[in-house]
């Protein structure tokens, strides 16, 4: 039996009038059943593109998968037809979007929006059963079922995100793609929502890809981490392997150094120099080479492979060619 979700060497391009944007450049990612993977990266790293590719929701005419494969539970997603995809979306895989304000339809009540998913995916269900499921899922996400006849604007931001989660989970999907679900929320609300999602994850045993730019959230919530830069996974491992901060990709190391630490007083932060890679360029070597302080000749010439560091820890950097840190000297 293969992996639960297997993304292999995925290339995605966006073609616009002016240029071609290389959003994903050979991204490889496996997700086990019941695993929560934190997908970390900055704006334009290709995190959302990956989620959209898995659901085949890339903007038509513009976005195209040019190479690679996606297998979900043995199903070839790229080859799947329209009907097959419609079944997959919602029933097997569902997605939570970043902005709870715009991902709900303002003219339908909350209950109707949840019911809609059930009508689509379980047409045989009776009305009573459906109502029962709606009540159940609302209770599960911490909303009193009486509120199902209210409209989204009567809910606050955090409550709306709970509704969005309820819609995503009502068909009991096996894989949940959460695209920055807490970024638009305040910290105290974020803590509530994360706690809720943690509980739900345990109850429902859903696999999850949790997309975020916040390394802290990942540590609190995920089992393993995939760091994305320039449309590639550059580091992959469990939380412990990465957060122990002994061996890291220079980019991950840079990210850690950028975050002001609550525990320690620092005089100055250590930002990563330069800017995020222009996605219309396609350098031959490592995507991070221009900003990397360990950059050597071969970094600019060819793209390093994923090197095995130990356990499930992989790093895509020449410094770790033999599992050993190579110094510049």
């Amino acid at each position, binding site marked *: 039996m293969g992996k639960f979700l297997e993304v292999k060497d995925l290339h995605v391009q*966006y073609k*616009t*009038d*002016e240029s071609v944007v290389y959003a994903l450049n050979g991204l490889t990612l496996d997700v086990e059943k019941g695993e929560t993977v934190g997908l970390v990266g900055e704006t334009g790293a290709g995190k959302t593109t990956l989620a959209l590719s898995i659901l085949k929701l890339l903007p038509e005419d*513009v976005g195209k998968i040019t190479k690679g494969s996606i297998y979900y539970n043995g199903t070839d997603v790229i080859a799947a037809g329209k009907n097959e995809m419609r079944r997959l979306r919602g029933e097997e895989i569902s997605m939570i979007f970043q902005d709870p304000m715009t991902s709900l339809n303002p003219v339908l009540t909350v209950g109707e929006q949840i019911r809609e998913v059930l009508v689509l995916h379980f047409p045989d269900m009776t009305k009573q059963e459906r109502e029962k499921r709606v009540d159940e899922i609302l209770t599960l996400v911490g909303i009193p079922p009486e509120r199902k006849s209210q409209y989204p604007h009567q809910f606050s931001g955090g409550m709306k995100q709970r509704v969005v989660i309820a819609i995503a989970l009502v068909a009991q999907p096996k894989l949940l793609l959460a695209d920055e679900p807490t970024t638009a929320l305040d910290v105290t609300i974020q803590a509530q929502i994360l706690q809720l999602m943690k509980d739900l994850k345990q109850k429902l045993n859903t696999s999850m890809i949790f997309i975020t730019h916040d390394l802290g959230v990942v540590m609190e919530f995920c089992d393993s981490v995939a760091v994305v830069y320039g449309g590639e996974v550059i580091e992959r491992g469990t939380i412990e392997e990465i957060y122990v901060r002994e061996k890291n990709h220079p980019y991950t190391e840079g990210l850690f150094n950028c975050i002001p630490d609550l525990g320690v007083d620092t005089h100055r932060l250590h930002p990563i120099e330069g800017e995020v890679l222009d996605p219309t360029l396609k350098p031959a070597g490592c995507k991070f080479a221009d900003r990397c302080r360990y950059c050597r000749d071969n970094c600019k010439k060819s793209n390093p492979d994923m090197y095995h560091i130990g356990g499930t820890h992989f790093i895509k950097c020449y410094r770790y060619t033999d599992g050993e840190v190579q110094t510049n000297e």
Partner: protein
Amino acid sequence: MKKQITEKNTCKKSSQLKMIVKRFGKNRLSIIGMVIILILVAAIALAPLYCSYDKVIQQSLSQRFLSPSAEHFFGTDQYGRDLFARIVYGGRISLFCGLVTIGIAFVAGMVLGCAAGFFGGMTDTIIMRFCDVLMAIPGLLLAMAIVSALGQGIGNMLIALSISQIPREARTARSCVMTLRNQEYIEAAKTCGTSRFRIIWRHIVPNILGPMIIDVMMGLGSTILRIASLGFLGIGIASPTPEWGTIISENQINIRYYPYLGIIPGLFIMITVLSFNFIGDGLRDALDPKMKN
């Protein structure tokens, strides 16, 4: 170093323009519209070179109702006047009046819309209610009423048509200003004590020009149509001065037997109006930042 900067400047500006031109070029209909208008404008502007004004008013009873031929491209009318010459010179008046009308409406609408949108409150209420009243009356009817009150003549017609067009432009300008008013760069301008006039002039006007130009292009077509309508009804440009609507009006009794007298000027009106609308559509795609990928 200074020189380098200026070089960079021109190259940047042109690249922005290039992008707009490129996007405009993707819309085939608007290119066709543009070409038609350019040919028309050239033909009209250069008219004295190939066709003297005498032909427009020169009557010759022996040459009445001639069908289109090599000598008279579009034939002649009931007085034996050359229809081609009349249409070419009539086009001058139609297009010129259209441009002037829309120009007045554009400037006045912009001023009123900016004032209403930026100051809000009472100013907004007064200006916009006034516009609502004007908009409640059909444009043509309003223009007719004004012309009847002021008397016939090109000047009065221009005033009448502008007044009926102003509320539309003011609405567009106001809605654009409303979306800009709370932008942070407007606040930033306020924090350094920029006067309100300067904020409008430097920060608001350049940013609403795009949507305003689109609106004006669309309005130009309908204005030309209105001028023709007024001409046809006999309260616009008075005969014998040629104007497309007036030409149809003069010939209406003969259209049944000599259909080309109505069809040809009608086609000119239609093609011109359509072309301006196509250009407007293309401009919307090219200038609207939301269309950017």
